[in-house]
């Protein structure tokens, strides 16, 4: 079984303890943070393990790329701490279990991964996917499994991820465009942190979109819109991709509004908090986040992750902000239509 590559000497020399000091949900001064972090490293009891909301952000805060969040999750599992109620964990473990019901298109050297998110079936349409739309994989067999970081189950990741990588490799895929941001984070951060080889080149879909948009530059009609960007938890695993958001927006005439909860200070969709900590924290974080979007005058809220879309799209829409996935935003810029829309929720009585 793979083991986490964690270098405790990096932490010994660290004065900032940014992993905990910058945490948006645990309020600690530097000294206490240092003490508590040392406990985590030593495998001792620390309240941090219970208080962690599993927002992933400390992975980005750490200047040494030493994977503090992965270590927290390891320690939670070792100590039997349940970040979310047991039945929720059970449900997640069961529902993503590989059972041989996957979908494979006409695979080329370069392919798209839908992960295990059917929303991509709606999103992948139009010119931006010309030549690749049928080269696609989908299903539990290709599910990145990073979600188990929320549930203190790195053991599941370590068991399933090598098989997932093998499944992808068997398709002959050399370059995999990860439409789910979390897949990219898994292949470029999580897998290497556990010494798991990734036998193909992962490409973040932001980079893919940016390159395709450049091909269609003459078709782009600047959108001239003000946008709140919704950063997702797994964006913390690959912060190096964030510049593509700016690059794409600049290409299509979208203004990424400077707001309190973006970039390093971004708030995740918080829906995982509902299951882990209860509705109060989730509602409060979502309210702060959306109020911030309203305050800066956002016309659109742009989503990276379909799970964030599920959590927040309806809520931002109620505040008069148009929810849109990044892929759809790019489609709008070249004169195509938004595909992923809120279902007409039957409030039938």
């Amino acid at each position, binding site marked *: 079984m793979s083991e986490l590559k964690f270098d405790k000497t990096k932490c010994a020399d660290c004065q900032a303890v940014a992993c905990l000091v910058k945490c948006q949900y645990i309020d600690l001064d530097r000294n206490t943070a240092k003490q508590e972090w040392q406990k985590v490293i030593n495998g001792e009891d620390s309240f941090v393990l219970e208080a962690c909301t599993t927002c992933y952000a400390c992975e980005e805060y750490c200047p040494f790329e030493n994977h503090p969040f992965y270590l927290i999750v390891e320690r939670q599992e070792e100590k039997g701490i349940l970040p*979310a109620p047991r039945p929720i964990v*059970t*449900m997640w473990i*069961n529902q993503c279990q590989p*059972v041989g019901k996957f979908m494979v298109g006409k695979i080329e050297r370069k392919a798209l991964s839908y992960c295990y998110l059917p929303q991509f079936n709606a999103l992948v349409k139009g010119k931006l996917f010309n030549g690749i739309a049928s080269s696609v994989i989908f299903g539990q067999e290709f599910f990145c499994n990073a979600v188990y970081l929320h549930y203190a189950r790195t053991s599941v990741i370590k068991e399933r991820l090598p098989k997932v990588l093998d499944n992808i490799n068997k398709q002959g895929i050399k370059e995999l465009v990860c439409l789910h941001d979390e897949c990219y984070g898994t292949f470029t951060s999580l897998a290497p942190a556990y010494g798991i080889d990734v036998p193909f080149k992962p490409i973040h879909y932001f980079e893919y979109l940016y390159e395709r948009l450049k091909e269609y530059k003459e078709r782009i009609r600047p959108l001239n819109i003000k946008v709140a960007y919704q950063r997702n938890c797994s964006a913390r695993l690959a912060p190096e991709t964030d510049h593509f958001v700016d690059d794409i927006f600049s290409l299509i005439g979208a203004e990424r509004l400077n707001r309190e909860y973006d970039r390093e200070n971004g708030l995740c969709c918080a829906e995982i908090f509902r299951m882990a900590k209860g509705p109060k924290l989730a509602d409060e974080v979502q309210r702060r986040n959306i109020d911030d979007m309203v305050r800066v005058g956002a016309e659109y809220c742009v989503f990276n992750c379909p*799970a964030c879309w*599920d959590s927040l799209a309806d809520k931002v829409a109620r505040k008069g902000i148009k929810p849109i996935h990044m892929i759809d935003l790019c489609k709008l810029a070249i004169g195509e239509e938004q595909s992923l829309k809120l279902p007409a929720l039957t409030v039938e009585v």
Partner: protein
Amino acid sequence: MTDIYEPLVKIVGKNYVSNQKEERYFYARDGGLMPAHEPDYVVLPRTTEEVQEIVKLANREKVAIVPKGAGLALTGLVIPQKGGIVLDMKRMDRILEVNEKARYVVVEGGTTQGALKSYLQKHHPDLRHSIPDSPPVATVVANVVIHGQGRLSHQYGFNSDMVSGLEVVLPTGELCRLGSCSVSSYWFSKGAPLPDLSGLFLGWFGATGIITKLGLKLYPCKKMRDVMVVLTDRAELVPDILLKLSHTEMMEDINVSAQPLPLRFKGTFWIMGYITGDSEDELEFKRQMVWGSLWDYFEKREVGLLSVSPDMKAPLMSMPSKDLTRFADVAKGGGFQYAGPITPIEKFPAFIKKLEEVAAKYQVFYASTTRLIGSGHCMMFSFSFSFNRANPDEMARAKKALDEASGFALEEGGVLWKADLDEQKMLMGKMDPNTLNLMKKIKQLLDPNGIMNPGNWEVK
């Protein structure tokens, strides 16, 4: 048996009587496991007077007569055991009156759930009825005749508790009104303050008369509705969770789902509670009350609140539930039946254990939906099995699984719901002898020639 085709034609017209093979084949069966038996005639009346004439004819000629809604009880209750007439009520589908201030509707005996829902949404959007999770073609009358349940059953009990008056054609052809409508033009009560005679017809599966008009209570229809999904993986906690949820008095409908597939359901019990409100504030208040009632379990990590995505929510919000219909064909081949004993909610863990046991023993695919009835006074627990109708072996195994589950439910203190003929025998075998005798006297008094849905509730 005398040929009564021509007399029937005289009553309803030739387009609405058939003694042809194809109609007799179709009306000989339902979607469940009970053996088929063909009627001699299929008749579709349009008016109460026609029903009266048909019944008088049948009584005179001693021909069996089985009133039928959509035939969706699935336990063979409208299979004509002794041939005769199947009286398909679907042409009597008018919605006669809605009294907005007294909150009731009067419908004809063949009005469907879907038609009533649609009518209320269009013409009386502030009112609603308790919609069962059967397909929309199920009829309102048939549902109360079997003591069905619906989306308001947690708040208001069995759908038959919501009846507010009856018009019945007796087996000897007389027309009779029961409840307030027997002395007044209003249909606000099926009994009180008079002697409540509705029990002579509700629950009898048409063996004592034919309901041609029905008064049904309507309830406020709030502007907004939401579902909360609570998960636990311990069956023994379910009764207490249900009681806590019920205690809040915030939920109009509470269900529990248990099934091994899709995998997301495996190993957990999904408790779904529905709340309504006229504003987001009202909904939020209810959410907080509900969640507060389970907070101790949440802190102990025994109970979780599932985040429900819009795509997941849409099917949960639909009425009737489309998921049930999907399950009905999960084994492919269109066979589906369930035993749904009514039982105290404390029996949930024992029933789940039995369900898993019989499913494994007979190798049939299972699911269970539990619905709370009347503030948790009891629950309907379904032992549901789907099977391929083209596979006789699978059908036989499903039937054995159902029979064993029903026997177990009875032993555990449950009462079998919409019991098929075998289950009726089981029930009557366990019933107090004086009660049985009373049933026998009632049946003989009302139906001296035994023509009404013979075989059902037949006390030997």
